[in-house]
């Protein structure tokens, strides 16, 4: 993987989010159900991307504590959507390692038809390796 | 015709009118031409037959400036044009004595020629009083016949009706000639693909030699000076030099007469190149009828013209892409 700068750019591209729109209101952290388990808080994700400190972000506990519930995405008044940023960071990690937790063939058997799609997708992203 | 001639003589004699506007015998049996007759003597050349298609209403613009009244012979369709000109303050009703002349359809020499009848010396059955259903045509190669209806101008097949919209007296009988839908031709073109449409008009319009006959004969093209002759638009053109100019000319001409054109069909009749120019005007009439309600120019001098009127709910221009 390239430099930190390039990673920050990739996060922007994957997430489709412009972190500069953030006005630092903290509504994301206010709304986050995993707040207490996170070392880097949702509102801080934005600063890490702006400051191009992706290293800290990908090594954080938060990366795996985010539930992808998207409450912050839903409530963010500025369209910054920290949930998407952390999701993008996660993808960087996942893409880099390239080792999936499950293989695609194993999945259908494990599926519960009642399971919400979004949960499935986010679970994939987090437990793939 | 005799009745018409007699009446003209009477009106000239008693001074009711100063001149008669009618048709005079041409140099060939099928080309009578519009003419003024100021003396009883000159009336000997007066003629009114199936070839007298010319719409005389436009001549009344100039005749309105002359001293005294003019007796003008108007066929039913010509009276629409007269009304429209009156609405536009171009003719003076007081200066006209309108003889509403009967009509049983006007003839198109091109249609006769198309049947292979050439070198015509004499035509019988074209007279206005003739009940004949066929024309007897004496040619250099012997006598030929042709059904009257087959020799009629296109416009007579889609005739608006034989009722005179304005007149001082009616002379002569009429016979209904309408046997086709006025908008069939337009609808057929509308149904074509853009490429076919383009090819069709490209073919027709490329024949245009910009002789201005259509413009000169058109009772709606009554401008003192046409925009295509004036410097106001930087649009004055002497001749066609590219494939666009005649399109521009004919579209704009049709646009300028839209809502004013009575569909008298003179443009197509006089076109030396045989371009079906009425297809432009009739397209506008069809659109106006469909989009803004039925409107017949010249029918009623009080009605608001479609292009000087509007409703809040008028169709948006985007309708053009959505129809058909």
């Amino acid at each position, binding site marked *: 993987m390239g430099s930190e700068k390039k990673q920050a750019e990739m996060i922007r591209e994957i997430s489709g989010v412009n972190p500069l729109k953030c006005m630092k209101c903290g509504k994301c952290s206010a709304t986050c159900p995993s707040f207490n388990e996170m070392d880097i808080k949702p509102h801080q994700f934005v600063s890490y991307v702006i400051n191009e400190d992706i290293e800290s972000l990908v090594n954080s506990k938060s990366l795996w504590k985010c539930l992808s519930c998207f409450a912050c995405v839903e409530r963010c008044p500025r369209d910054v959507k920290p949930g998407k940023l952390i999701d993008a960071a996660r993808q960087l990690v996942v893409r880099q390692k390239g080792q999936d937790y499950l293989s695609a063939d194993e999945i259908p058997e494990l599926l519960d038809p009642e399971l919400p799609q979004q949960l499935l997708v986010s679970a994939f992203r987090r437990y793939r390796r | 015709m005799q009745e018409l001639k007699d009446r003209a003589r009477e009106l000239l004699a008693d001074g009711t009118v100063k001149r008669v506007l009618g048709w005079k015998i041409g140099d060939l049996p099928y080309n009578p031409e519009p003419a003024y007759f100021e003396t009883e003597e000159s009336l000997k050349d007066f003629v009114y037959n199936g070839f007298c298609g010319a719409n005389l209403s436009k001549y009344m613009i100039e005749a309105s400036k002359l001293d005294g009244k003019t007796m003008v012979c108007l066929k039913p369709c010509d009276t629409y044009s007269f009304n429209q000109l009156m609405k536009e303050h171009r003719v003076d009703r007081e200066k006209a004595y309108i003889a509403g002349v009967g009509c049983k359809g006007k003839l198109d020499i091109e249609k006769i020629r198309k049947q292979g009848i050439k070198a015509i010396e004499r035509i019988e059955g074209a007279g206005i009083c003739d009940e004949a259903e066929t024309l007897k045509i004496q040619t250099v190669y012997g006598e030929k016949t042709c059904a009257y209806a087959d020799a009629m101008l296109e416009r007579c097949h889609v005739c608006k009706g034989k009722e005179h919209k304005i007149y001082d007296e009616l002379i002569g009988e009429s016979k209904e000639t309408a046997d086709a839908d006025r908008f069939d031709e*337009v609808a057929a*073109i*509308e149904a*074509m693909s*853009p*490429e*076919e*449409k*383009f*090819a*069709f*008009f*490209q073919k027709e319009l490329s024949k245009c030699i910009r002789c201005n006959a259509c413009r000169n004969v058109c009772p709606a093209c009554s401008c003192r000076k046409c*925009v295509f002759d004036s410097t106001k*638009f930087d*649009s004055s053109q002497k001749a066609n*030099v*590219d*494939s*666009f*100019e005649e*399109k*521009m000319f004919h*579209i*704009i001409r*049709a*646009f300028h007469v*839209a809502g004013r054109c009575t569909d008298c069909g003179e443009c197509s009749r006089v076109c030396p190149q045989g371009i079906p120019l009425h297809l*432009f005007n009739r*397209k*506008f009439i069809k*659109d*106006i009828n469909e*989009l*803004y309600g039925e409107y017949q120019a010249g029918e009623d001098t009080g009605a608001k013209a*479609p*292009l*000087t*009127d*509007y*409703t*809040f709910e*008028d*169709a*948006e*221009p*985007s*309708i*053009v*892409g959505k129809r058909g």
Partner: protein
Amino acid sequence: MSIEKKEFRPKIVAFCCNWCSYAGADLAGSSRLGYPADVKIIRVPCSCRVNPMFILRAFEKGADGVIMCGCHPGDCHYSTGNYYARRRMTLLFSMLDYIGVENGRTRVEWVSAAEGVKFSDTMNEFVEKIYSLGENVRLGDLRCRS
């Protein structure tokens, strides 16, 4: 001399009424809402000032698309101008369609002074349409082509 195939850049003329659409274009500008530079705006007092002749003239001189923008019906600064314009353009566009000119080359859009976004969106859309139609060959005067 080599003949290079030039990249097609359309010429697009936009007639905008002074009160709504020109102001809408200004708002698009001050809001930095971009649209392709192919669009050039001509200011007219009202959409009813747009003579069909201007539109045909533009095509004759090589325009690939002509768009007219005015106040929304009912909002005309001159009360009724755009109602007349609406009829005129409807008939003109119908005629162009009738003679086989691609319908997408002409367009009317009502854009208010507040609709900077709509102005820019409309122009982007229109330019895209013209790109898809390619060069106007049916109405142009070939002499004007370089």
